[in-house]
């Protein structure tokens, strides 16, 4: 390969431009003229006769997340496929999670194919990475020099096996349909969100920061200021420990039994996001899906419209598996400033031991874990559901979430609970 960049042929340039436009139109990729220009420039630095290099170059320029990477690969194959090759099924642009297992007729749990534990690693399937990986480029089996559109892709099916997300019957969404949530009382929810944020006292940060007043003299800034007064430290500068701002991680049980309450929490999540940028939202039914990008992109005051959430909405309930998946795959999003709010009625068909294990792990790393239950709003409620009982030792509070009034009281109730570790979780 010569060092100097070579220009791209007009026909290839036209193909790439059309491909970029397709990604933008059909999947909402943030691709503008600058990205198209960069994509064409990128092709000048790779071997355009190598399908793998072209795909790698375009993917590096046109994608910005692993979810986009997966969609890109499928679209790339569809767009540059040879005649006669079947059109692959494209998943929606959402974080994909393999569906948890269903119990087999013997009552034993089948492990998901990508996470099958067992004593014999040789006989186990290779863990299926969620995205094409560095060395395991999906087109990796193709010999170098394959031109664009010159035939089938790798036979290992990495890109052919597009997982299809299926919607379940739900009070909110029909199979394969978008979920629409009314705007509701946004000002009221914003007040509730503000109350929640103000109620949380997470203490002070460990790191010293420049503050107007503080316990420690900031020698660097004081000396800097002294340079203007001929070396006399007239203006003292201080360091202090700022208050720790909370992060929120909302986990919504979107199963059939939770329909109305889950949509209320979705609106609350949106309101919370408008008050604090540090909000992550996940939904689960039988599988877990990250909703943060959708919540972030929603217009305030307008009905919230989400695409078909498949196994994350309107199906059965797998609390333990999904909390465990959250604790394992998204552990980077949980730190000592994170308050985890779980909304679920606790009616679960999975193993309650998994709930306990996941919550123990999450609570160890978070500022607090709070379970919101619509059932807890009913008089005489006792936390006897298997999942709730397993979770109880690891919770800072188990609070009712029967309607907007409970959300308004959330901050006050959390203040009463104080998110104190080691204390028995209060049940309101």
């Amino acid at each position, binding site marked *: 390969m010569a060092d100097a960049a070579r220009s791209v042929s007009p026909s290839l340039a036209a193909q790439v431009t059309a491909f970029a436009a397709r990604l933008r139109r059909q999947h909402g990729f943030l691709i503008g003229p600058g990205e198209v220009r960069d994509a064409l420039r990128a092709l000048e*630095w790779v071997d355009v006769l190598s399908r793998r290099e072209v795909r790698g170059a375009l993917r590096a320029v046109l994608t910005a997340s692993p979810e986009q990477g997966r969609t890109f690969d499928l679209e790339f194959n569809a767009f540059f496929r040879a005649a006669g090759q079947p059109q692959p099924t494209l998943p929606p642009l959402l974080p994909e999670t393999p569906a948890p297992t269903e119990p087999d007729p013997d009552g034993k749990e089948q492990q998901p194919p990508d996470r*099958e534990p067992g*004593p014999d*690693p040789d006989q186990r399937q290779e863990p299926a990475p969620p995205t094409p990986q560095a*060395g*395991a480029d999906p087109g990796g089996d193709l010999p170098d020099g394959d031109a664009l559109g010159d035939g089938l892709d790798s036979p290992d099916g990495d890109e052919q096996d597009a997982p299809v997300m299926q919607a379940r019957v739900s009070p909110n969404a029909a199979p394969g349909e978008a979920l629409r949530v009314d705007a509701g009382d946004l000002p009221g929810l914003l007040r509730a969100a503000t109350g929640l944020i103000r109620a949380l006292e997470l203490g002070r*940060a460990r*790191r010293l920061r420049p503050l107007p007043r503080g316990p420690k003299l900031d020698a660097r800034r004081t*000396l800097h200021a*002294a340079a203007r007064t001929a070396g006399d430290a007239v203006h003292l500068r201080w360091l202090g420990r700022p208050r720790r701002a909370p992060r929120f991680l909302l986990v919504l049980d979107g199963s059939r039994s939770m329909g109305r309450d889950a949509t209320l929490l979705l609106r609350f999540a949106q309101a919370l996001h408008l008050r604090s940028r540090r909000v992550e939202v996940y939904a689960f039914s039988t599988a877990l899906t990250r909703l943060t990008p959708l919540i972030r992109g929603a217009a305030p005051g307008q009905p919230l419209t989400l695409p078909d959430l498949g196994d994350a909405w309107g199906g059965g309930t797998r609390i333990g598996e999904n909390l465990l998946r959250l604790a394992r795959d998204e552990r980077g999003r949980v730190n000592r400033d994170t308050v985890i709010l779980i909304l679920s009625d606790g009616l679960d068909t999975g193993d309650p031991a998994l709930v306990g294990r996941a919550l123990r792990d999450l609570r160890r790393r978070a500022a607090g874990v709070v379970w919101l239950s619509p059932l807890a709003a009913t008089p005489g409620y006792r936390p006897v559901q298997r999942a709730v009982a397993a979770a109880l030792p690891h919770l800072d509070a188990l609070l009712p979430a029967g309607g907007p009034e409970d959300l308004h009281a959330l901050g006050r109730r959390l203040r009463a609970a104080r998110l104190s570790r080691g204390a028995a979780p209060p049940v309101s």
Partner: protein
Amino acid sequence: MIPAVQELQDAFQTRGYVAGDALATSLRLVVGLGKPLLLEGPAGVGKTEAAKTLADVLDTRLIRLQCYEGLDAQSALYEWNYARQLLHLRAAELRGDGVADDDLYGETFLMPRPLLQAIREPKPAVLLIDEIDRADDAFEAFLLELLAEWQITVPELGTLSAVSRPHVILTSNRSRELSDALRRRCLYHWTEYPSRAQELLIVQSRLPGINETLARQVTDAVHALRALPLGKTPGVAETLDWASALLSLHADHLDAGALQATLGAVLKLREDQLLAAPTLQGVAAKAQARG
């Protein structure tokens, strides 16, 4: 001279880093296009190592900025040596000399930090901005200007343009969502755990003294562990640590005793060790049966 993708892969491999096609292509574009590369992926998959190896391959300097919460632009860019400035002022006073601003705010008292160092390098350096997701939003916003304009403004000195444009690699573990603005300025690559064959190759490249049986058993065992719902999934670094620990014990295969003695090199949480016990027993039993 910018190496072609295959040449880059070969050069990486001779240094013990197995780079896939997509990563190698992205790294080539970093050099060719002059755009930063955002490397995301789980901890321990070799994101930082990719930058180090690139610097080695290009025979240039690696400048590393480790991000943390509270990192400010001043700590990343430059600082003035205030104590020395004050001494200079006092000395001038004693001599009865006047001190001009240019004397006080000159190169003598300027302490360049990683970002300033990177743009002042005569030969393009590899600038590793490690764990950008740990830095605050404000620092991320500050980086946008640098990555777009390749220049830095020091109020007392004016605008300093890059002598050479560094090859920038940012890494992130996704503990915080990065802004679209930053993502749009970067090339993007998601790094996953290597496949079994790749990891075997990595072990054999990094530890040339290891026998194939042991290397294969360690690799297989690590892949079995990654399939479990562990709290801290072992990365490539843990695989290498484990293999090194076994080598230091002169083990030539993975039996129950060696496994027990070295388990802490690969599983760092007690809960994970308990959870993985049945899997590891199976691995040891199989290794013993073969032995």
